[in-house]
């Protein structure tokens, strides 16, 4: 029981200290931030490798069941690593070609319906259940047409066609403005819980210690730079 609690406390301390080290980057880059950054990269790369190995183990199931054809993906998978070789890199093209070909085939059989037809059909319904809905449908249709016109590159867009493309450009600016609003919400949705974690009663001491460490390192770096 005590061991479990110690593990939980250690986890809180470790995660809070690393969080404060990363936030110190807002002041300036420093060794503590670089330490946290390298720990993160190592952890992420390690996790991907672990999940990859676990997936390969599951992939061995058909082979263990006697399906000899499943030797092929195992060999192709190993050939992926030849990408690091200066002379044998071309062997990695075989598994990549399989992946690309499969992806292309799966896209080609669904994109026309999902991303073209099923997008066009609701857009060309202009009459709505009330005048406001009709107005919205017309605006949506105009935005669709004008933004598509903007991407005509096969001829120079002049005159009325040029004006339509310009209108498309403004609609896209409106869309990117809307997208910016979503970006702000996502970033804040990540920042607020980070702050909540730092200020929670379990974490206050760790947060304080982390801040002191950061201040110490920044102060030392400042004095060293000044003396140089």
């Amino acid at each position, binding site marked *: 029981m005590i061991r479990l609690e110690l593990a939980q406390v250690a986890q809180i301390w470790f995660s809070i200290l690393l969080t404060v080290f990363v936030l110190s980057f807002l002041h300036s880059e420093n060794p503590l931030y670089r330490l946290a950054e390298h720990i993160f990269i190592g952890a992420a790369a390690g996790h991907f490798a672990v999940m*990859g190995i*676990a997936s390969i183990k599951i992939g061995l199931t058909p082979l263990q069941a006697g399906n000899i054809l499943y030797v092929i993906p195992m060999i192709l998978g190993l050939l992926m690593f030849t990408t690091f070789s200066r002379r044998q890199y071309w062997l990695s093209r075989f598994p990549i070609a399989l992946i690309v070909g499969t992806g292309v085939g*799966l896209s080609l059989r669904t994109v026309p319906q999902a991303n073209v037809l*099923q997008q066009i059909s609701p857009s060309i319904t202009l009459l709505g259940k009330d005048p406001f809905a009709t107005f919205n449908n017309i605006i949506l249709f105009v935005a669709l047409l004008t933004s598509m016109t903007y991407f005509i590159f096969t001829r120079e867009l002049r005159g009325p066609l040029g004006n339509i493309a310009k209108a498309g450009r403004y609609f896209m600016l409106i869309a990117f403005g809307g997208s910016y609003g*979503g970006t702000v919400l996502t970033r804040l949705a990540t920042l*607020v819980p980070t702050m909540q974690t730092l200020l929670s009663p379990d974490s206050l001491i760790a947060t304080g210690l982390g801040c002191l460490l950061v201040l110490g390192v920044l102060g030392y770096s400042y004095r060293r730079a000044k003396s140089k």
Partner: protein
Amino acid sequence: MSEKKTYAERLRALDPRAIYVLLTLAVVVPILFPLGLPIQIAAPTRDVYNAIEGLKGGAVWYGIDLLAVSLPEMMPALVVTVRHLMTKPVKIVFVSFTSEGPMYYYKLMDQLKTQKKYGEDFAYLGFIPGEETAIAAYAHDVPGTAKKDYFGSPVEALPVMKGIKTAKDFALVITCISLSLHNDAYVRQVFTPFNVKMVQVMLSVNYPEKILYYPHQIVGALNGIKGATEYEQLTGYLGAATSANDAITMAHVLLILFVVVANIGYFASGRKR
């Protein structure tokens, strides 16, 4: 004699750390002194609620397709939707197409503390690599692609998997998505071939772009933490999203103030760059 700086130049010369301090205060103060601001529910959120509430049986495909960075934004939505699902008479089959998904599964189970039985009421088929190809493979052959559940049991041996062969055998597909390409992949490889009912929980950054699938291809959508806040209000399971609402509101107000002040000054100084 030095030239007088334009307003825009003075703004650009402003120490960004002053702005960071103001933002920190705008976030920290509501955390320490909650305001309890009320919220209103958006239509796509209500449609997600109705889709889950209307389940009378069958199986649900729940995709935990999240990256580690999305934890604070998506965890509340994940918890509240699964909590709601578990009140329905449905079997839930969890799966992940991102490598961080299994870690989310553990956190989800820790928070839910459900009475439902693993293997009979729900199961987790683990992480399947391969992005869109993996989603397509799974949709066409669920047991053949997953092979084993996350804990090593053969999929065929799980009672919850009885009668589930393809995506068509699911009454509803719900997916929590971090990567925008997964939004497209699910619509292309699950909805388009099988025409199965789908709702998506998406990051706010992807929402403006991916909401175009609503309502013809996806029947409902949750807009990140805002959607989670609304869903918590709808279901009554108040949690992390509701507690973050005040701070998010104040930070938004601060941003609007910043932009307004920056532009008032810009126009007042004669729009000099």
